[in-house]
């Protein structure tokens, strides 16, 4: 075994407690330590194996703790694991767990992780995130999910109460980065076996996080209280955390302004006004999601989109600057790569359409369309599908206007989310709005989407691209490989990338400790505190 000390692993090896939250100089703590944040919708599940949405993840980060947690910049720091060792071949990770308890006073053991991970891949659990353990390349995960092996054959084992061993099928450079994801959290076997699906109800839930579940009024509010059993409880300042559901963003903003919420998303188009009016409250930070119009190049796709020149013309003529500066107005950035610009270690390839002035782009687009036999006299007729949302509608209308002068006639097709995803999966669309958010802070979280066997709703396929990503799994320096992969996307244009997200929020200046440099906006209530106003 060879110890690989990364910057964060060095911290872990020293087994220091997580950095204590302390008010900065001149700050006085408020008497009441409460934080109230906004939820757009009811939280569907508090079970780490069954959670599929952001709201659920935010809640679960307070209730449980995984092997790793993230610091304010998104770097991995010790959670339940105080240190880890990696084998020479990069296939075996051995984690040493800290002394910690569940909220019912029982110790957290390696077996809790084994049970939790096996439960995720067990087909009977029906976890929609079972694929995550496949993405982590945990040995046999794919076969177990497919029902070809039994869950006890998963590459995870408890060597003793405090030692957890994970075996991978292939070296995975980003493996450690995947360990802060809620799907990898431990769960209490005895409680689940006793209560079944109802184990996540407030009266039953047992967690190992910094907070316990005090109440959960579905669709109204969820309340967390500080967990005295948490291993670092003495450094947790925030006593009570409330997630309040407000289904309308504008009403939520009003309630924030009335002092009922400490944090709320700013509705599209209102950031310029609010940042001018409340410069100490309106915040826009990069957020690891990318928005695109995916072209269907599969069997059911229209003939026109099988022609690269048509796709490139559409990508060229899309005025992204207008979209981000005049429609969204929240600090988003135009996207010329699929990978979000702020992803760790990612550098987008230089050149390409980003460096072309808009006039030159439009000229080139017209040329390409003419070469392909299309133009204003012989327009390309396509249907653009998007799911119900005001922003998607505005962007689709903008795209329709950008494309029309070139001879690309777009019919807008607004469908509800369930229909949208159903059609994406069955290839029943022509051009479709889509966005992808990073599951971990590394470029493959985006690039894998376009692999032949990835999500890849448009059914684009490129052997060189697949090879590059396979090579990147074991490469010392992945930068040139990822750049080439992005170049291929720019050449082949399986989608027109539109913009990279930013998180645009109003945050009460009395609340300190919310991360502003974490690309996935991963926050932990244990890092927060309220200062006296």
């Amino acid at each position, binding site marked *: 075994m060879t110890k690989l000390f990364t910057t964060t692993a060095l911290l872990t090896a020293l087994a220091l407690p997580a950095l204590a939250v302390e008010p900065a100089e001149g700050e006085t703590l408020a008497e009441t330590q409460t934080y109230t944040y906004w939820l757009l919708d009811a939280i569907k599940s508090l079970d780490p194996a069954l959670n599929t949405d952001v709201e659920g993840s935010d809640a679960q980060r307070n209730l449980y703790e995984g092997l790793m947690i993230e610091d304010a910049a998104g770097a991995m720091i010790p959670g339940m694991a105080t240190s880890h060792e990696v084998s020479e071949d990069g296939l075996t990770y051995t984690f040493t767990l800290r002394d910690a308890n569940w909220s019912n006073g029982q110790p957290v053991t390696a077996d809790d992780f084994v049970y939790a991970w096996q439960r995720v891949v067990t087909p009977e659990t*029906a976890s929609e995130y079972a694929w995550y353990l496949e993405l982590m390349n945990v040995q046999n995960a794919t076969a177990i999910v497919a029902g070809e092996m039994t869950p006890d054959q998963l590459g995870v084992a408890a060597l003793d109460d405090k030692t957890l061993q994970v075996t991978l099928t292939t070296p995975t450079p980003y493996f450690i980065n995947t360990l802060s994801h809620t799907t990898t959290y431990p769960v209490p076997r005895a409680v689940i076996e006793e209560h079944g699906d109802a184990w996540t109800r407030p009266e039953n839930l047992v967690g190992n996080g910094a907070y316990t579940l005090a109440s959960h009024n579905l669709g109204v509010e969820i309340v967390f209280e500080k967990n005295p059993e948490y291993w670092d409880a003495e450094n947790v300042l925030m006593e009570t955390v409330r997630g309040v*559901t407000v289904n309308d963003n504008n009403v939520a903003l*009003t309630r924030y302004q009335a002092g*009922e919420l400490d944090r709320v998303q700013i509705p599209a188009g209102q950031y310029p006004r609010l940042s001018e009016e409340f410069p100490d409250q309106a915040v826009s930070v990069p957020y690891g999601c990318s928005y695109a119009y995916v072209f269907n190049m599969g069997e059911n796709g229209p003939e026109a989109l099988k022609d690269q020149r048509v796709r490139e013309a559409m990508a060229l003529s899309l005025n992204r600057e207008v979209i981000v500066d005049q429609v969204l107005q929240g600090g988003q950035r135009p996207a010329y790569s699929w990978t979000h610009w702020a992803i760790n270690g990612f550098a987008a390839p230089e050149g390409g359409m980003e460096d072309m002035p808009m006039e030159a782009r439009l000229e080139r687009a017209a040329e390409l369309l003419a070469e392909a036999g299309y133009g204003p006299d012989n327009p390309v007729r396509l249907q653009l599908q998007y799911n119900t949302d005001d922003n998607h509608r505005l962007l689709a209308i903008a795209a329709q206007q950008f494309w029309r002068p070139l001879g690309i006639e777009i019919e807008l097709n607004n469908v509800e989310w369930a229909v949208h995803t*159903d059609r994406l999966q069955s290839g029943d669309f022509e051009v479709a709005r889509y966005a992808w958010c990073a599951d971990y802070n590394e470029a493959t979280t985006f690039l894998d989407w376009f692999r032949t066997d990835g999500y890849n709703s448009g059914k684009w396929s490129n052997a060189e691209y697949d090879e590059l990503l396979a090579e990147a799994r074991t490469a010392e320096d992945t930068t040139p490989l990822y750049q080439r992969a992005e170049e291929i996307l720019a050449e082949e244009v399986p989608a027109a990338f539109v913009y990279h997200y930013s998180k645009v929020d109003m945050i009460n200046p009395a609340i300190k400790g919310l991360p502003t440099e974490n690309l996935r906006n991963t926050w932990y209530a244990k890092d927060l505190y309220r200062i006296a106003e």
Partner: protein
Amino acid sequence: MFAFVLRRLAVAIPTLLLLIVFSFLLMHLAPGGPFTGERALPPQVLANLEAQYGLNDPLWLQIWNYLVSVVVHFDFGPSFVYPDRTVNQLIANGFPVTLTYGGLSFVTAVIFGVSLGVVAAIWHNSWIDYLAVGISIGAQVLPNFVMAPLLVLIFTLWYGLLPGGGWSFSDPSFWVMPVIALATSYMASIARITRSSMLEVLGSNHIRTARAKGMPEHRVIIRHALKPAMLPVISYLGPVFVSMITGSVVIDIYFSTGGIGKAFVDSALNRDYAVMMGVTILVGALTILFNLLVDVLYAWIDPKIRY
């Protein structure tokens, strides 16, 4: 009357069964399903999910099992979207909320609507009439999706008098804005119907006779005009009451009450079949029940009506 009620109940049961069957079929015809997500589920996982919820049975068997579960055990099954909740629990949580603000809204709308309508009719073509009609029109052109954010702006942001949303059975301050927002447009409709009906009755022969006999005006109104004038109002109130107590998605969204209206819309969007069916049956049963009650009330108010 008793025989009439029995006859109506005998018709209500097959009506409800038909509603269940048709809703079930329509639900399954909708594209997508409860487990349609961004990523296609592995076949084994999907098979387990479908088995868990009985979706792998033929449709006729699914409907039969559902009917047995509902009719025999009064069990609406587990939610497909909220794994730790059953439909019974979701309805038990959401319906009392909706019943509270819906019932209060109904009472408010009836009291104010009928009063405005009667006052406007009595002082027909006077400034009182114009004021009452003006208030009604104002209330009518402010639908609840306009009223709700407006109320939050005024009472929460500007004056800080009321909480901007949420729900508490023990704190009436949470009820005020949902009740006002929901009651306003209904109040306007009730006022309009009452006014026109009252004007018609006040112009009828028996009222003229009563006045000619020298009966005091207040007795004319209360004893002879009000009751017949209420007939069209009552026929309007039946379905209104049902729609008010079974939830308003707008009120639930703007005030985050946790009521059944939003749960119903969410269940449709999420393809949460069990919740969709549960709420459909609840609304259907209440609609049938209150239509029956309206008919009974009709007969009581106007003895000429016999069924």
